[in-house]
């Protein structure tokens, strides 16, 4: 896999995530008790033996840099290759929003050129999965494809638009691509991960960025469907997408199923993240914990059901947490009761408060709020 360069794109839309992405890029959204969303893509790449990873930075990347630092946790602090942070061009206009991945790639063209790898794997980071890029790359070479698009058809991705459906023929070649199709053309949903020769990537970037196009897939790959050999590689296994509060909540709750927990965290290697050296979880007498994912550093004396506790949450006696996601270092006063709630980091809930959202629409409390 020395031949494969990894590129992680952070420009996927995040409007649907509301307060969770108010101050952070998608990759830095906390997920699964101790991770950030980018950990999955980054770890999958490293677990497959990729040793050169470029991260296309966009806006609100402060928390992301604090998380990945020099890439040491992923063994990417290397003398040769390793992790590269690729900033977006400075905006000269006053327009809002992120710069596109095509202009970002164009801006960092020299990184692509100088990398010694012959092939590139381009991936967004909204897909939470544990997948084997070695197998995908082998498939790409075996099919002698120009581009390989990785897709999945067992997840619930189509119920969380926007999504891209692909149709493949008997050989696995992609014959049709549709964005959010009204009538279901295929259950195969693109994971927004593509493998191609690096020189093909550079030529697509050059051509389409010069024509003011924005997105690599929809503006540069889709129009070439007939001209290039584009194949689909099926990744079997659990996939969650983080593109709205609803999908965030649903895919978080999926982790409470042992089969999903095993698949996502163990199937093709462990998911690495920043280590915080928290102590093991303390369960005191009288605690009641069921169907829950509990990170280290927590102390539990109350009731936790069907919930996710991030690191360092203290659940005192009389506190009840149900169907909720409680991020790092939440401070919960005595007698607090939470249901269908997402508490962002460092939230304080004062004694006796009772908060409840709806199962289909969880209540989100923004980072560092006091209630």
């Amino acid at each position, binding site marked *: 896999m020395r031949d494969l360069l990894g590129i992680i794109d952070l420009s996927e839309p995040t409007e649907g995530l509301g307060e969770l992405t108010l101050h952070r890029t998608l990759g830095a959204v906390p997920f699964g008790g101790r991770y950030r969303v980018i950990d999955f893509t980054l770890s999958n790449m490293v677990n497959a033996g990729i040793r050169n990873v470029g991260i296309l930075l966009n806006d609100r990347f402060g928390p992301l840099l604090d998380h990945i630092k020099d890439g*040491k946790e992923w063994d990417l602090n290397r003398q040769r290759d390793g992790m590269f942070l690729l900033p977006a061009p400075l905006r000269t206009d006053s327009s809002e929003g992120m710069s596109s991945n095509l202009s970002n790639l164009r801006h960092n063209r020299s990184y692509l050129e100088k990398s010694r790898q012959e092939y590139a794997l381009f991936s967004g980071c909204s897909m939470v999965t544990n997948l084997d890029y070695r197998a995908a790359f082998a498939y790409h070479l075996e099919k002698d494809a120009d581009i390989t698009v990785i897709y999945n058809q067992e997840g619930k991705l189509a119920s969380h638009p926007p999504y891209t459906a692909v149709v493949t023929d008997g050989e696995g070649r992609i014959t049709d691509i549709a964005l959010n199709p009204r009538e279901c053309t295929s259950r195969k949903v693109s994971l927004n991960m593509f493998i191609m020769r690096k020189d093909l990537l550079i030529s697509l970037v050059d051509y389409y960025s010069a024509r003011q196009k924005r997105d690599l897939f929809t503006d540069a790959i889709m129009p070439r469907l007939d001209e290039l050999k584009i194949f689909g590689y099926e990744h079997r296994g659990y996939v969650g997408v983080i593109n709205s509060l609803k999908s965030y909540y649903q895919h978080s709750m999926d982790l409470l199923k042992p089969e999903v927990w095993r698949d996502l965290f163990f199937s093709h290697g462990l998911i690495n993240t920043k280590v915080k050296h928290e102590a093991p979880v303390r*369960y005191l007498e009288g605690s009641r914990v069921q169907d829950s994912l509990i990170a280290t550093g927590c102390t539990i004396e109350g009731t936790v059901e069907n919930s996710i506790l991030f690191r360092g949450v203290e659940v005192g006696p009389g506190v009840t947490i149900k169907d909720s996601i409680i991020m790092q270092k939440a401070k919960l006063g005595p007698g607090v009761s939470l249901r269908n709630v997402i508490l962002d980091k460092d939230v304080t809930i004062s004694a006796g408060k009772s908060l409840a959202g709806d199962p289909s629409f969880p209540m989100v409390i923004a980072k560092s709020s006091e209630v």
Partner: protein
Amino acid sequence: MQKKELVAMLLAGGQGSRLGILTKKLAKPAVPFGGKYRIIDFTLSNCSNSGIDSVGVLTQYQPLTLNAYIGIGSAWDLDRSGGGVSVLPPYVKDQGGEWYKGTANAVYQNIDFIAQHDPEYVLILSGDHIYKMDYSKMLSYHKSKGAAGTIAVIPVPWEETHRFGVMKTDEQGRIVEFQEKPKVAKSNLASMGVYIFNWKELRSYLEADEADPKSSNDFGKNIIPKMLKAGEPLYAYAFREYWKDVGTVDSLWEANMDLIKKDPDLKLNDSKWKIFSLNHTYPPQLVGPLADVQGSLLSDGCLVLGRVHHSVIFTGAQIEEGAEVTDSVIMPGVKIGKGALVHKAIIGENTIVEAGAKIGVPARPGEKVEISNENGITVIEDNVCVPGTMRIVEGTVLSVAEWPEFPEEWIS
């Protein structure tokens, strides 16, 4: 090499023979402890938290696990340029080589390593104690007393003084007499095996001790008595927090149980004094729909579908549905099958207890049991599989070497 004020020498070569099968393949400091740590993490974290950045770790017995674990010391922030952690096994010199004969000889053989740093002081540590201690405070005490050597001491119950080296001190804390494992003790201040010496003085005592053919080359038995006899100013530094020697099955089990008290004496989640350890990033633990977890400590990567009471469950262990674990220490990667019972036991790393097995059950009337420890703790070796038909009586120590023929009464 940069000059250092202090170099720490951590003695980690001991076999820990009193831990029996738990140290068959690894040195005592590498034994898992407290849900996610190994014993040596406490001493290494103390060094790191005390601002010590040069630590020599002296290894000898079964060092592979320990070497791989320590690596370049990153986990403890001890991967430093011009210092950091150095693993020091015995090596061949121009006059030939030999194993470390005793604690003092081990340091003697590494005089050149210490000399590279040209320190004022040397801190001698053991890798087999559980405690949180700020060595920088002890160093300030050592300096303020103008001592040649300072020995950290802890008050122990008088009836236990025969197990320790005890120090009789005057009102200023100066040591006037040292008794090694006395029958009749004159003091209850026990040495913790933590010493600070002025390097120049220590070096000359180490060299003299090495030249003495009658010496057993041990700090407690030889160096300290010789320094006292010569009238060197040695001081006792009293430590009054949690400290535990985990050299036996009983003390290892007790120290684990100490952590799950409602208000433990040793707090692991202290953000100002973190205990660092080498982590593989396992996912947060998953507690299932029928689980019942109380009064316990559980680490990352655990899957709990059964009942866990008053136990310490290490990284990546799995407790299946209907299984019951009480008063036990379940080491990393252990799998407890459906309906299995585990009571008052230590289960070694990666061992599989198959569905239905019973471990730590009371003996039947007339059944002969060989209880090898005070608390009646059952110990199962690492990396073995306990068949589901087995019934293991409390207090048994089970090693695979003795397995080919099970006594008939063990099969339930």
